[in-house]
């Protein structure tokens, strides 16, 4: 029987409130009552059901104490864009200083400049009211990675854009004056670019979120390599598949990410559960494969392949690295949400000491509570 077969007064447009669902729920309640002797649900606590207990094992009814991060989607995307742009600025500068291919320099400057425009836009969008960004420029606090980061972004933006504009202006000649200006702006962009690629790791690491602060020793390096891989890949996709230097860097970065992935897989600690299990674990792992072993294999294969195939392999590796870098950031941020929701970690309750799940999970599965003693005494009371 479908909903449409019901009398019109019972048809509800909202599928959540559909008649069938409610009927199924009543049936489920009846079965649960038969099976366990009591039924639990929001707002329904039949007399005689076990009263809940707060305990050393369950904390405060399994309600998590820490607050979840409240950043919107813009923040992980910014981590990705900022990391790639920062690394691109470094690449542009060293490519220019060593007298490398001017087209590589130009395109690297382009990647850095695009990132320099997108980064503050994403940050402002997260804040909601654009003028609020300026509030962060009224003080400088070295103890706050957020404050340090804001100044890195604010200095990186203009210098990376200036470097690109001057680079574009001197495309037909090489005025010494302009070259010095580009070099200076580029040097500034490269220095702050190093910050762009790394500080986001410190930013999330120096928080109360367990999965982040327990990995603070590696997160910034991890993010730096991820940014380098993304930066190299973005430049290569602009037609530099055969740049030897970029290919070398790409191999190095993906090899580094592979090592980081292996390290994370081998490390077993309770705080790391969110980067291994569930949706956030899946995202982090897929991100890890796409930034580590996959591009590494593709890039190594490109070395021994023929010219045209080699280019395609490098392109595929670059696309994988870019996707991997983005997914890595998304995965780590999501993991932070899950980590905050684990009531056990800040209360130092070892996993496995309690079968109690967080309230929402318990509601869904109707799992009986621990505390048989309570159940019996209440039964007696009736």
């Amino acid at each position, binding site marked *: 029987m479908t909903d449409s077969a019901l009398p019109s007064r019972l048809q509800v447009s909202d599928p959540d409130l559909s008649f069938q669902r409610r009927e199924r729920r009543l049936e489920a309640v009846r079965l649960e009552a038969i099976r366990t002797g009591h039924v639990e649900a929001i707002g329904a606590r039949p007399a005689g059901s076990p009263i809940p207990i707060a305990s050393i094992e369950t904390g405060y009814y399994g309600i998590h104490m820490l607050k979840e991060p409240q950043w919107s989607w813009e923040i992980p995307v910014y981590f990705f864009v900022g990391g790639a742009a920062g690394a691109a600025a470094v690449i542009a500068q060293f490519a220019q200083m060593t007298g490398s291919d001017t087209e590589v320099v130009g395109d690297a400057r382009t990647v850095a400049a695009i990132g320099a425009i997108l980064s503050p836009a994403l940050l402002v969008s997260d804040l909601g009211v654009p003028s609020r960004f300026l509030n962060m420029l009224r003080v400088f606090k070295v103890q706050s990675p957020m404050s340090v980061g804001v100044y890195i972004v604010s200095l990186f933006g203009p210098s990376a854009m200036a470097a690109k504009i001057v680079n574009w202006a001197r495309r037909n000649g090489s005025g010494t004056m302009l070259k010095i200006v580009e070099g200076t702006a580029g040097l500034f962009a490269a220095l702050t670019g190093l910050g762009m690629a790394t500080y986001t790791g410190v930013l999330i690491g*120096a928080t109360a979120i367990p999965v982040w602060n327990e990995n*603070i*020793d590696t997160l910034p390096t991890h993010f730096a390599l991820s940014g380098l891989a993304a930066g190299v890949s973005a430049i290569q996709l602009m037609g530099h598949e055969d740049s030897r230097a970029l290919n070398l860097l790409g191999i190095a970065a993906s090899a580094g990410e592979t090592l980081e992935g292996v390290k994370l897989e081998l490390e077993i600690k309770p705080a790391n559960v969110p980067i291994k299990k569930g949706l956030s674990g899946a995202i982090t792992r897929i991100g890890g494969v796409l930034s580590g072993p996959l591009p590494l294999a593709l890039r190594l294969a490109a070395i021994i392949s023929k010219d045209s195939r080699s280019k395609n392999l490098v392109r595929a590796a670059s696309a994988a690295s870019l996707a991997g870098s983005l997914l890595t950031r998304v995965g780590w941020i999501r993991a932070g949400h899950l980590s905050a929701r684990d009531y056990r970690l800040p209360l130092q309750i070892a996993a496995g000491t309690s079968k109690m799940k967080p309230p929402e999970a318990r509601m869904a599965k109707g799992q009986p509570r621990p505390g048989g003693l309570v159940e019996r005494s209440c039964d007696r009371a009736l």
Partner: protein
Amino acid sequence: MSATTAFLTDSTLCIGCKACEVACKEWNDLGEDGLNWTGFSYDNTEAVGHSTWRHVKFVEHPPEIGHGGNSPDVASWTFSSDVCKHCENAGCLEACPTGSIVRTEFGGVYVQPDICNGCSYCVVACPFGVVQRNKEDGRAFKCTFCYDRQKVGLTPACAHACPTESIKFGKLDELRAEAARRLEKLHEEGMQDATLYDPIDTSIGGIHAFFITRGDPRQYNLPPQPEIPTIYAERGWKSAAIGAGVLAVGTLLAFLGDRQ
């Protein structure tokens, strides 16, 4: 210079009337935060947040004579009114990039609403999960320690409304001494499980809103080892320096190698 003030919240005196919650909401003009049944205890507020600055926890236990009642059939209850801890070393204050969060002359931690820009970094920096961003407004809010009332010599609204003096307000040193005396008295009276929660030995360096609770403080969602997140920053910057070094040297070598 005014003296540093503090709250002593004594759960052995709390009757769970929620007068503090109501007083706080009314004085600070906080919105209602959902009239939902949690379904797992008589506590339907769950936690402090952007619109709940006082929150009475209902810690329910199996019936135990003398512990929150003398009936063998009724659960024993202890209540404890939770609030921002106003840490000696406050994670939110250190993390705030705008300087919106400041230390007041009363030693409290105060979020200036006209400066807060809603970056929500304080939310993840608080080791007690107190600060929260109001999604509609965009800014972060938490207990002000009734800075406005203290400014004119008044007691914070919650302490003023408390009918059993479970929430005591006073000078930090005096209240710490009183907490010690009270604890001694409770132990004398046979409440051996009464403890004072004030993490002085951690990087937090003590709190300005401490609690007397019965049993393990973890049942009250009070973490045994809260740390200010800035203690991780040094290791983070070290790792960042390594990352930056690898990035710079690697890039330089790659392009130098390419030139030859």
